[in-house]
Each structure stands twice: as C-alpha cells, then as structure tokens.
C-alpha cells in the first residue's frame, strides 16, 4: 500500500465501523449522512472555487437537478434508482455545460454574482413547475436497493453516501495531481501564463465547472433516495451559500477540507439549533445569528480555513517522490542551420488608442542565434514579445515562424510552433511546487485527459512529463529547490524557474523577458553559459535585457527600439558605436 493511500484507508476503515458501534444513536448516523452529502458538493466547490478560482453560489441548484431527475423518473416512470444515477449526473452535467458556457467566461466578481442569479432563478423554477410538484415537491421516492437489501434506514444508506464521498475524494485528488489538474490549478493566477504553454483555459474552466456540478448532482441523487422525497427548499439560494461556507471554512483549496468543513458546519448548526433555544428560552432564530457571527469570527481568525491550519501542525511532512529522470519525451525536429529566417517580423505595428507602442518594426531571428532586443523603458520591447506570442493581436504587419504566418494565432497555437517565453513580471503559481510549475511547460507534450487522470491511467504519461520537468530544473541548476513552493524562492530564482518551464516546451525559439533581472553576478554568468549552450544545441534565443554587460557579451545580434521604433540593428560592437543608440539609450555623454 502506497503512502498516499494509507491515510485514506484508515479514514475509510474508521468510517466503516462507526455505524457498527453498539449503542450508536441513529441520529448521529443521520448527521453523518448529512455531512457526507454536504461534503460531496463542497468537494466540487474546492476544485471550482478554491483551486480554480471560480466562485459559484449556484451549486445547490445542481443538487436540485440531480434530485429531481431521479425523483421524477423513479416515481412517475418507475425506473430503478441505479438507472437514474447516470441520468441524474447527465442532467446536472448538461445543465452545467449550458450555464457554464455563459458564466465561466466572466471574470472576477461577475461569476459569483451571475451564479447567485441563476441559482435563485432555478430555485423558483423548481418550486413552480407542475411536474416537479411545485412547492410540495415529490414524495414516495423508492429507496436504493441491492438485490433484496433495501436501504431504508439511515444506517444502510450511510455506506452508499460515504463510499461516494471516498471515491470522489480520491478522484478529485487524482485529478489535481495530473496534467489537467495543473492546468486547473494555474487558472486562479490569471490565464496568460497557462495559455502561453498551450492550456485551453476556457476549456479547463468549463471542465472543472462540470465536474463540480456532477458531484453536486450525485449528492442530490443520494439525497433524494435518503430522504425519499424532494422539495425545492434544500436547493435554494441559502443552501448554495452554505456549501460555499463549508468549502471556505474547511479550507477552500483542499479536498479533505471539504469533508472537514462539512463536519464543522453541520455539527455546529445542529448544536446551535438544539442548545441555543434552551439557553435563551427559544426566542427567534438565535442559531442563525450565532452562526453568522461565528462564521465572521472564524474568517477573521483563519481566513484560509481549518484544514491547512491543522496540516501545518502535523509533526511530520508527507515526503514527495523524486521523478525518475531516465524517462524521455520525443524531441522536436530542429531546423538545420539557417535555411532562411526562423522568426520573421515584418512591419509589426501595435496601437493602443492613440499610443503607438510598436511602430512598424521589422527584424528577424535566424536559427542558432541569440538576438537581444534592447531599448529604454517604454520602448515597446514587451509589447513586441506579446505580439509574437499572440497575447496581443497586431494592428498591422506580419509575423511568421518558419514561414508560417502567426499574426492572429492565439498563444496556444504559437507555442505549438516551438516558441516558448518567460514573463517580465513572473507568472508562476506560488503555492505549487517548482516541479509542478515547470511541468506546466510540458503541457502540450502530454496527452492524458481529465478522466484518465482521475482513474490514474495517466501515470506513464505523467511520469514522462515530470521527468522532463525535473531534467530542465536540473539543467538550470535549481534541483535543490525542486519541491519548494515556487512562491518561496527569490525573485531571481523564480525567473530561472520560468526559463526551466519554457525549456519544457522543447522550443526552437526561446523568448526571455529580462531574465537576468534580480540575479547576482555569478548567477548571470551561469545563465549566459546556459543560453550559449542552448544555442549551440540548436535553439534560438530572443531576449529583452537591461544589463548591457550581459547583453553585449552574449548576443550575436542586437535590435534597438526607442519609442516603438527600431533605430538600429547589428552586432554588439556596431551597436556600441552607433551614434543614434548612444544618443537615445546609452546617454549622450557615454
């Protein structure tokens, strides 16, 4: 048994014996069932909100889809509950596709607000539709049964619920620890970096949205057969809000945080409901007041949730397995020495309103060549990078890579042609390890999808990706930091991590935006040596840099921009003597 599965197995064994304890009050089992049902929904939210950064208040509505689908089919049409299970999941997933196509594209706060709105809309729809029994809902739903065993009481359906929780927890953790999972985890930090390595961010968002909805649908299906009835109340706005609580209280980025959060919230509510009225003579909705206040207090004391707080107090830290670096990925065909230009920029132009950031700039990069793009701040260097990599679309001119026009290509297509980049402002996922960050660079070189990742059928593919990532980390000299969270490294080291990530693309052209900023002298020399070695291995490098000593030593050719216009191009020696460059950039007296 691997170390990963051990804690889960212990937890599963523990949960399995709880109902067998003699004298266990049945009420506690009901409570545990409710915890399990809430945990399922919250687990979806952990992936959606905590990991993916997409806040949804509408999850309760997806439970509603799951519950009502089985309620209608098993009462009005007499279908077996086991047959309605896939249909329930399909209906909630299908609803998620429709709503997701509309909502996941929304950025920032539009998304949560949008989900509140359709969440409430759906709640009213459930409570008004004739065939869903309006406000009274549907009763007389048949129990789950296996052979002759009918799961009539809380103690038997308990196993169905908690087996579902455990399976979903495993699937969710598998998903997060995979190629697709890294793409999802990168979503929260904005989409530009992920897209530069070929991640289809809208698809990743939709995927996690559907996944969360299917988990909610499963919870709804179980709920319907547990309660043997379905009415609109548990699928309303307040329930949707409560699921989000659970995820945040438990720790929104952690799968087990969902289970812990569900336990805390469900039990807390139960205690408040049963004891507060005794203390205060049963006046009003005291439990809501206290619950609200406790929630605010909890957020103020532990804004990241309880699970990470607990984990940081564990006496031992789970060790990570080093990837086996002997596995390799197929390499890209490299162009033989110089049959024409590798990258050709012809009259590229970019205007932001009246500002001309890049003014009809033309230059090219040959195979096996290091070209430096220099110029004062605001000269249009980073904008040129963004035009090449498809982050911005050019106002005019053409850009081509190995003869292929990439003017309007999105970043995901540009990277496929072998152009990899780093960013002037480091774009790593700070809470992911260096290894995982770098592995995002190899995204396009893996093929495992979400489903094979959940079922762990992706391990061969995954091992190769991680091996490649580890090799590139070793190559840039950060092997000692491989398991540290990327955010804990110094800024200079984070830039080097970005280079390793770009190298994972196996690029023919490497675009580096100020790679030496924040590095010490020795580190700069090591970087220069690495770049020369890459060039001699057949790679071309285009870099923006302000450190003139570094640039003059390293570059084969230099292009100088000033106010968006190219003012000079040539070898370092020619540039040093060019009067225009000296005037515009190095200073008139130099």
């Amino acid at each position: 048994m691997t170390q990963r599965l051990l804690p889960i197995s212990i937890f599963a064994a523990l949960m399995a014996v709880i109902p067998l304890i003699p004298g266990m009050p049945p009420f506690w089992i009901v409570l545990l069932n409710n915890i399990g049902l809430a945990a399922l929904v919250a687990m979806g939210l952990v992936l959606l909100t905590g990991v993916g950064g997409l806040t949804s208040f509408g999850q309760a509505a997806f439970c509603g889809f799951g519950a009502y689908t089985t309620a209608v089919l098993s009462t009005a049409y007499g279908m077996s509950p086991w047959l309605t299970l896939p249909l329930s999941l399909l209906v909630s997933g299908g609803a998620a596709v429709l709503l997701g196509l509309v909502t996941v594209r929304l950025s920032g706060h539009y998304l949560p607000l949008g989900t509140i709105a359709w969440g409430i809309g759906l709640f009213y729809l459930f409570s008004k539709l004739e065939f869903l029994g309006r406000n009274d809902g549907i009763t007389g739903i048949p129990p789950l049964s296996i052979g002759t065993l009918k799961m009539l009481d809380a103690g038997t359906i308990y196993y169905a619920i908690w087996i579902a929780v455990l399976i979903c927890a495993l699937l969710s953790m598998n998903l997060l620890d995979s190629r697709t999972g890294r793409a999802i985890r990168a979503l929260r930090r904005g989409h530009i970096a992920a897209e530069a390595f070929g991640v289809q961010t809208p698809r990743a968002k939709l995927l996690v949205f559907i996944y969360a909805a299917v988990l909610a649908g499963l919870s709804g299906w179980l709920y319907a057969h547990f309660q043997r009835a379905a009415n609109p109340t548990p699928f309303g706005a307040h329930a949707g809000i409560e699921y989000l609580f659970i995820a945040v209280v438990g720790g929104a980025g952690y799968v087990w945080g969902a289970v812990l959060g569900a336990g805390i919230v469900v039990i807390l509510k139960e205690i408040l409901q049963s004891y507060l009225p005794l203390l205060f003579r049963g006046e009003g909705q005291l439990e809501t007041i206290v619950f609200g206040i406790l929630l605010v207090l909890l957020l103020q004391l532990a804004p990241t949730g309880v699970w990470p707080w607990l984990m940081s107090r564990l006496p031992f830290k789970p060790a990570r397995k080093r990837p086996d670096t002997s596995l390799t990925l197929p390499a890209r065909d490299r162009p033989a020495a110089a049959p024409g230009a590798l990258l050709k920029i012809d009259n590229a132009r970019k205007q932001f309103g009246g500002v001309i950031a890049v003014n009809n700039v033309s230059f090219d990069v040959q195979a096996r060549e290091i070209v430096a793009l220099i110029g004062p701040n605001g000269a249009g260097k980073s904008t040129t990078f963004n035009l090449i990599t498809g982050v911005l679309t050019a106002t005019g001119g053409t850009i081509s890579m190995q003869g292929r026009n990439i003017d309007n290509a999105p970043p995901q297509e540009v990277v496929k042609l072998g152009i990899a980049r780093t960013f002037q402002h480091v774009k790593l996922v700070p809470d992911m390890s260096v290894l995982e960050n770098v592995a995002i660079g190899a995204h396009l070189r893996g093929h495992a999808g979400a489903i094979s990742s959940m079922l762990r059928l992706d391990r061969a593919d995954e091992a190769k990706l991680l091996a490649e990532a580890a090799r590139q980390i070793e190559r840039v000299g950060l092997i000692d930091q491989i398991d540290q969270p990327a955010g804990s490294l110094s800024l200079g080291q984070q830039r080097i991590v970005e280079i390793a990530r770009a190298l994972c693309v196996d690029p023919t052209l490497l675009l580096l935006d100020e790679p030496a900023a924040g590095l010490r002298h020795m580190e700069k020399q090591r970087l220069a040596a690495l770049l020369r070695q890459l060039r001699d291995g057949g790679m071309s490098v285009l870099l923006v840099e302000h450190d003139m000593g570094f640039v003059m030593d390293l570059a084969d050719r230099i292009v100088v921009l000033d106010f968006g216009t190219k003012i000079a191009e040539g070898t370092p020696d020619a540039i040093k003597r060019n009067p225009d460059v000296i005037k515009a950039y190095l200073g008139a007296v130099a």
Partner: protein
Amino acid sequence: MNTTIMLFLVQDGITNGAIYALLGLALVLVFAVTRVILIPQGEFVTFGALTYATLSAGNMPGTAQLAVAMGVVAFGLDLFGGRRSLHLRLVARAFAINILLPVAIYALTYWFAGKNTPIAVNIALSLLIVAAIGLFLYRLVFQPLAHTSVLVLLIASVGAHLALQGLGLVFFGAEGQRGPTISDAAFMVGPLRFTGQSIAVYAITIAFIVGLWLFFGLTLYGKALRATAVNRLGARLVGIRTTLSGQIAFLLASVIGALSGILIVPITTLYYDTGFLIGLKGFIAAIIGGLVSYPLTAVAALVVGTVEAFSSFYASNFKEVIVFTLILPVLVLRSLAAPEVEEEKD
C-alpha cells in the same frame, strides 16, 4: 392588452425599479470601494423600513439597542487595535464615535418613541440608527478582513447577512408591517394616478444618482474613494485613509438602504426577511451595470422593475424566474463584448 393596463404596469415597474436602482447604486458603491459584495444591503432596507414602522406605531425599535451593542464591541476592538499607542486623543475619538454617538441616538429615540412624533423625525431617527449600524458593521466585520480576497469578504458578507436577518426576527417579529405614507397627496394624469409617495421615490432616486455621480466625478473625497477601489496599497501610499473610505462607503450604503426601505414600507408590507430578495434584485441591476457604472445601473434597475411588473401580470408564478434569468442574456452579451482582462488575484 390595452394601453391603460400597459401604462399601469410601466408605472408600477418604474416605481419598483427606482428602488432597485437605489440599492444597485449602493452595491456598486460598496463594491467599488471595499470589494465587498454587500449581501446585508437587504437588511439595511428592512431595518430602515421596520424601524420606521415601529417608531410610527409608537414603540421602541430593537435596532437602537443593536447600534449601542455594536458600538461597544467596536470600541473594544479600537482599544485593542491601538493598544500599543493609547493616546488620550485616540481613546477619546474612539469613545465619541463608538459609545457617545450610538448612545445619543438611543437616547433621542427613547425620548421620541411613544410620543406622537412627526413623520420627519421618525424618518431621521430610522436613518440615524441604520447609519450607525452600517458604520459599525464595517468596523466589526469587514475592516479586519480588508486585505483578504473577494471570496472571503463575500462569505463574511453572507455571515453578516445571516446574523442581521436573525436579529431582524428578534426585533420585529415574524409579522409583516407597514408604515405611514410620507405624503397622502395624489393626482391624476390621464388614467394614471400618481401618489405623493411614488413622486418621492422618483425624486429621491434621481437626487441620489446625480449626487453620487457628482460626488465621485468631481470631489476629492469621491476620487479618493475610487482610488482606494483600484489599489488599496497605492491609495495608502498617497495618503488616503482606506479605512475612512470603507466607512464612508458603508455609511452611504446603509443610509441608501434604509431610505429605500422607508420609501417602500408604505406601499408594500415588509417582513424581516423581505430585504434579501429586494437586495438581490438591486444586484441584478448592479451586475447589468457592470458594478462600475451608476447611470447604467439605474437604467438596468428600471428594466428589472418593468420586467417584474409585466411578468407578475402575465406569468405571476414565474415572476422571480424571469427576473433572475434576465441576467443570463446580459452576461452572455458582456462576455462576448468584453474579453477577459488579465488580473492577478489573491
């Protein structure tokens, strides 16, 4: 349908829409300055309305005590927060705002309650009480969380909503209440009857929209508030007190909420939990307005109000469904029109 019914519905829709516009404006204001999506806005509405109704009925509203209680806790927090440098001035200031102010409001309310006070006094008292609650709500719940993510603020906002709604039940009971109208005047234009109340709704809404527009566009304080919204750290570095900005935003929002409540409580019966739904409809307007534009929010609110009026006439069962799904086409348009901008979160 004949023209008269249509005119009635439009009139009804505009009156409702004006209220939603007020609430939408307050939501935009609070979000822009503090990044808080203010779910308790609905409670400001019900607190304002029911405090006014309670005062008009000659009783002492529980909200006055709540303001005092919240002030005492806020005072404690202020002392604790400033424990390393407790000057007399700091203590005196905290005491004046957190203790003297709510106690004075309580005393005034106590003095006037039970007497046959004029409507204007009751309105002023209700606004004062809810304003104090809004101010302390920011101090107690959101100021300690000001640096956290929008999500955490949102959940805290939900927590505050639950607590306040529960308190609403304690203070005002489960029965609905109505308040006396501000003006009984009424006149006819063609088949339409305009009441003084609805005229007041229109006038106050327009006044607030123009006022906020001018405040944010022209005054230094307004610009400081907007700067806080864009970048808290940057605003602090140029000397803007971000805490003050948050307090101003909450003060304005609570006054606007209470005022909306006072304006509608003579027209419709309000319950302790009605505010949530009313606030959410303000949300719809605010979202359509993109949480940034005041005029657009106001127009959107009128659309929401009108759609609500028409759907309650034709498909009253599906009124809420229609109103809340109204947002979907808008979201589609928005997502098509404005491509996502890169933003660094957390």
